[in-house]
């Protein structure tokens, strides 16, 4: 296809601008990554490091020898795996039965779920329920109240709607009940979609911060985000107070950056595998027409 001069200018300016956008998005991550591997003495000497001359694993060694840090990583790992598994089962089970048109009460259930998206009573009533159920200071307070979201149920339901009914009928003829159909036919068919939802739930659990702040007093139960917050933000309030935190061995910045990288690693590790499902998971059935 022949391009006119106008089109050519348009294309190159467009490409350039997108490159700048990508660069701006990427730079903070790159900077943190690089500094975390920079030799602490080099970091202290230089004004800023764009590419370190001497690489070092000191900061990582230091972080990974911290018991509290490892324990909170473990807590978050537990949340992300157990929580995600529970969430997926509950969401997929509810969404599947709601997708069966013959189910009595379906309309009421759907409307009820839609309403929870539109109206939320706020933090305090939620907190009170969790407290009344005696879940304060239990790791389950971060899982059970976050099991499902109305959005995800509705999205997954419209995904199940799109599975042809004939499949189900033939399984029925072969003597399968609804439970069997769900386990043997529907779930295997929806694996890619489940992967996407699983990723979103897992990221949600991994990133949980506020619920932990609300419900957990015991620091041994803290997920990684709360620990990070203590490490990253309270140290940096030195902007406000004149007092400087007496930093130990590697300068606190390289430690902080190493902590950020370690805490982000699980997400970055699954990212490439699940990226192709993002679009699907983000909007199964949400765009009309």
């Amino acid at each position: 296809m022949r391009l006119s001069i106008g089109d050519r200018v348009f294309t190159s300016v467009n490409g350039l601008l997108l490159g700048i956008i990508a660069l701006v998005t990427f730079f903070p991550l790159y900077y943190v990554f690089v500094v975390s591997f920079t030799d602490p003495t080099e970091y202290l000497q230089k004004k800023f490091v764009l590419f370190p001359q001497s690489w070092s694993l000191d900061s990582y060694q230091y972080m990974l020898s911290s018991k509290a840090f490892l324990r909170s990583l473990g807590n978050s790992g537990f949340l992300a795996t157990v929580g995600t598994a529970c969430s997926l089962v509950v969401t997929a089970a509810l969404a599947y039965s709601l997708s069966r048109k013959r189910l009595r009460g379906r309309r009421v259930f759907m409307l009820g779920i839609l309403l929870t998206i539109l109206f939320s009573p706020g933090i305090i009533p939620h907190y009170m329920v969790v407290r009344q159920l005696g879940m304060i200071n239990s790791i389950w307070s971060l899982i059970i109240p976050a099991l499902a979201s109305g959005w995800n149920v509705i999205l997954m339901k419209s995904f199940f709607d799109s599975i042809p009914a004939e499949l189900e009928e033939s399984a029925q003829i072969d003597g399968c009940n609804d439970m069997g159909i769900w386990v043997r036919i529907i779930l295997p068919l929806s694996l890619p979609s489940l992967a996407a939802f699983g990723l979103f739930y897992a990221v949600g659990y991994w990133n949980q911060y506020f619920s932990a702040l609300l419900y957990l007093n015991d620091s041994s139960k803290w997920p990684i985000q709360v620990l990070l917050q203590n490490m990253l933000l309270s140290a940096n309030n030195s902007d406000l107070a004149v007092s400087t935190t007496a930093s130990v061995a590697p300068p606190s910045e390289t430690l902080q950056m190493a902590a950020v990288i370690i805490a982000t690693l699980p997400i970055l590790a699954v990212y490439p595998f699940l990226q192709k499902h993002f679009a699907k998971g983000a909007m199964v059935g949400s765009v009309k027409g």
Partner: protein
Amino acid sequence: MARTSEMALSKAKARPRAKSRLWFDLKRDKYLYILAFPGLLFFLVFKYVPMAEVIIAFQNYSPFMGIWKSPWVGLQHFERFFANPDFMLLFRNTMAINLLNLALFFPLPIIVSLMLNELRSVIYKRIVQSIVYMPHFLSWVIIAGLTFLLFAKGQGVVNKILEAMGMERIGFLTSPNLFWIMVTAQSVWKEAGWGTIIFLAAIAGVDPQIYEAARMDGAGRFRQMWHVTLPAIRSVIVILLILRLGHIMDVGFEQIFLMYNGAVSKVAEVFDTYVYRVGIQQAQFSYSTAVGLFKSVVGLALVLIANKVAKKFGEEGVF
């Protein structure tokens, strides 16, 4: 055995048809109800019980007496809140942050997805997409942490660069004038790329023949974008705008909470952070529930109004 089934039969005959039909349906779909049960129970306990508990906004709730015995005080907490000078402050801050979001953050994913759509190189497009999606998956703690590491007055790299160029250091995180801009920039950085997904999907659904027709009429790349692509995704834009309006009273709690510090408290306190401070930290349950309820009701009203208006203008709306 025969007797019981006979009894059941006669019972079914005696009752109106609809009832036996109901029993039949429940029995036939028992597995579906078993599957639905945990989920429905979840919504009941964690979404509807809290909705019922908002009645403490009309009480002087005391944890020792519980909901049933706490004294009723009518709208007292609401009156107290509206009369409180904090109210205007919270309202101003919430609105300012949200309007900035609406002006800067909302259009950006649309623009970026239009731009991405114009890229010819598939590989380049993929690289850009992978990068701009990524921040969506980072927690607010990490993003606040990155902001500190980059912008802190002492050790932040941006200030180091400024100094190296012979300029003054700027207290990005402690300056009330910059706070709104900083949080909007954070939102843009975190979510603008992710926001493109939905628009890109809508764009992918446009019939290529329309582009061909536009080309025949002599439309260049820019005009095709303006006259074909943009109208094609209009309904998606409207839907997202409606949903966004419903959240105009919410500002991401974690984001603001993490960026909050004494120096910027006048511009950083929003409804959610206020509810947390007053409700959880000072244990004023009823008052803070009233504040939260006010916020939620306004939000709900806004969605319903926006949806109605959208329908008036011939759009599909959300529901």
